[in-house]
């Protein structure tokens, strides 16, 4: 049983169907990628989980029980379109938002101070948000999303607006939160971070759920069982002893690069055993399709 279980969630706005009978299970303690093109219905689903919008039909379970208004205190939400009160001081504002999530003022102050130390931004407490740069404000926004220690964290494009150093900082925080048992729903168009961070994904297109499952499982499913070998040598690779077909074999940055089709059931041991005989192997890897390609393929074919 996941932390969130949707069954048959449908939501219409007038004549427009935003979600069409979507059923999903979001496992506890994992990072779950919610993917889909713009306007697919992701935001509607996120708003339904946040109880901002009510579904027309379908059931939503939180920890196995129908979701209640008080469950919002166990959810942290970083919307894609986000902002803070410009004229309010950073510390005051973060405490206000934490109180709305059910924390006491005292608890919130203590927690917030720890976060300020962690991000080394102690000097910002009495600054007004309008005095901060966009990246600085984003950091505060991230802290306000997670400081009430939610069981479920919903992050919509969490890396937008950050420089690479801060992207790394936030990435590390996300992984640390996962380590601590938080379930994270990550909605993003950045497929690299999906490959890197997500355990499971769901792809929504035109109001329908198209695909859901483990990231590796999906990548394998949509791949064509290719492996890539980079080796030093001048001759094309000879692989008499393994059930493979050579897809390509070319010069690649001073070495040679061969792509092999292993649909025949060849194991890595078999392939490497053959290769090692006459070649100096630089690298060997399963050639999984990029999430990016799967995304484009699924969305355009749909």
């Amino acid at each position: 049983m996941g932390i969130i279980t949707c069954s048959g969630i449908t939501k219409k706005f007038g004549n427009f169907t935003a979600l069409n009978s979507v059923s999903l299970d979001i496992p506890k303690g994992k990072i779950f990628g919610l993917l889909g093109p713009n306007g697919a219905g992701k935001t509607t689903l996120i708003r339904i989980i946040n109880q901002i919008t009510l579904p027309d039909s379908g059931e939503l379970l939180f920890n196995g029980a129908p979701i209640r208004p008080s469950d919002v205190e166990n959810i942290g939400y970083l919307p894609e379109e986000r902002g803070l009160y410009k004229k309010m001081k950073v510390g005051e504002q973060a405490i206000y938002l934490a109180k709305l999530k059910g924390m006491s003022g005292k608890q919130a102050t203590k927690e917030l101070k720890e976060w300020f130390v962690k991000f080394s931004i102690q000097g910002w407490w009495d600054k007004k948000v309008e005095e901060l740069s966009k990246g600085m404000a984003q950091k505060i926004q991230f802290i306000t999303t997670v400081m009430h220690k939610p069981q479920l964290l919903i992050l919509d494009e969490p890396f937008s607006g950050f420089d690479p150093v801060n992207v790394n900082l936030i990435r590390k925080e996300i992984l640390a939160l996962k380590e601590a048992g938080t379930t994270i729903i990550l909605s993003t168009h950045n497929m690299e971070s999906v490959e890197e961070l997500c355990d499971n994904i769901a792809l929504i297109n035109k109001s329908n759920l198209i695909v859901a499952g483990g990231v590796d499982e999906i990548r394998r499913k949509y791949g064509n069982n290719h492996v890539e070998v980079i080796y030093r040598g001048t001759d094309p690779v000879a692989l008499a002893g393994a059930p493979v077909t050579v897809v390509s074999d070319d010069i690649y940055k001073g070495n040679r690069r061969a792509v092999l089709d292993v649909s025949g059931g060849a194991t890595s041991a078999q392939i490497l055993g053959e290769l090692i005989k006459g070649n100096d192997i630089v690298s060997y890897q399963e050639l999984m399709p990029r999430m990016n390609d799967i995304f484009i393929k699924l969305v355009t074919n749909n």
Partner: protein
Amino acid sequence: MGKSKISIIIAREFAIRVKKKSFIFTTILTPLLFAALMVVPSLIAMYSGGEEGQKIAVVDGSGIVMPYMESDDEYIFTEVTDKSVDELKGNFDNLDYFAIVGISPMDSSKNVSVVTYSRKQMNIDVQNRISRNVEAAVEEHKLKGYGIPQLEEIMADVESDVKMSTYTLDEKGEEKASKVEIFMIIGYIGSFLIYMFIFMFGSMVMRSVIEEKTTRIIEVIVSSVKPFQIMMGKILGVASVALVQFFIWIVFTLIIVTVAGSLLGLDQAAQTMAAASPEVPVEQITAAVQDEGDGFIQALKDVNYAGIVACFIIYFVLGYLLYSSMFAAVGAAVDNEADTQQLVLPITMPLIIGLFMMLHTFQYPDSALSFWGSVIPFTSPMVMMARIAYGVPAWELALSIGVLVLTFVAMAYLSGKIYRVGILMYGKKPGWKEIYKWLKY
């Protein structure tokens, strides 16, 4: 849970406004202004009089008027016998006269005509005084012409001294001094303030909703609190700012007026004025001032201030609640303040209509228009305020307040629906049709 969250929102809405410099500024300055409005007219009355001892030349062609021209500190009437009006006029700048009064010889029916010349416009008091004096002189001269014996005694006896006091009878048959002017002033000021404050604090709510929408913080907050609670929290937060401000204003104004009153010794104003006119016995003037004042002060004392202030607060709060929920819905429907103009029209129209009705009601508190205006919830805060000083039957008050409360509840429900959808909608400015659809989402 819900309750405490709404109170967190109210607390923030209250705190951010009360901490603003502009709030502190207006809260302190306004009572000074109120007090000035109350104290300054008395001060002006005390020290007015303009330039003293201005000479007015009188060329009395009739020979009967001059004894009636009474001089005082301000104006000294001087008879000129050796020059004509035209000579004086021609030489005006070299002579030290403020004005020239020329009185013609008596005509066949023993009437005279008067011309006055002056460089500066003569004020109405002096003009009245001159014409009164001349009339008195002519009348008396004519009367004397009839040769009635003991005329002076008869005149003294006939001299009328009519004081007018108007009373209205209340239901218990007790009379109360009714100074319609006071009721009119109270009604007018009360309604106008209600109109102004509803507008001011209502649009404050609207701007605040737009701000949350444009900064996009609303999406974060709405994931913690129900939209209706956010809206009501904001409305109530601003209401508490208004009430605190009123309270401070009332207390400060009372303090300043009391202190200023005792420091400046306004009570002595009457005596000072009396002492300034030496020709008339002081006691007589003081008595007259008190006579004149008695009815007025009595009427001022008879005004049910506590009742009026209570009504003001009730009608401000309810009217504000009704209108601010509409303002909140409009704020939610648009992306920026520039887009509000069209949508805000149905809010400002009834407010302005209420204000116009009030301009009728404060003079005719019991007309049918005044009655209906004080029952219809969109105009009742202004119109009822204009009636309240005159006394309004309890059932009408109850009806008016009841209708207002019910309308607010209905309006809050509808506005809540528009607000809920609107705060998450960006982009195209919605039309009426669109907003109507939102009611059904």
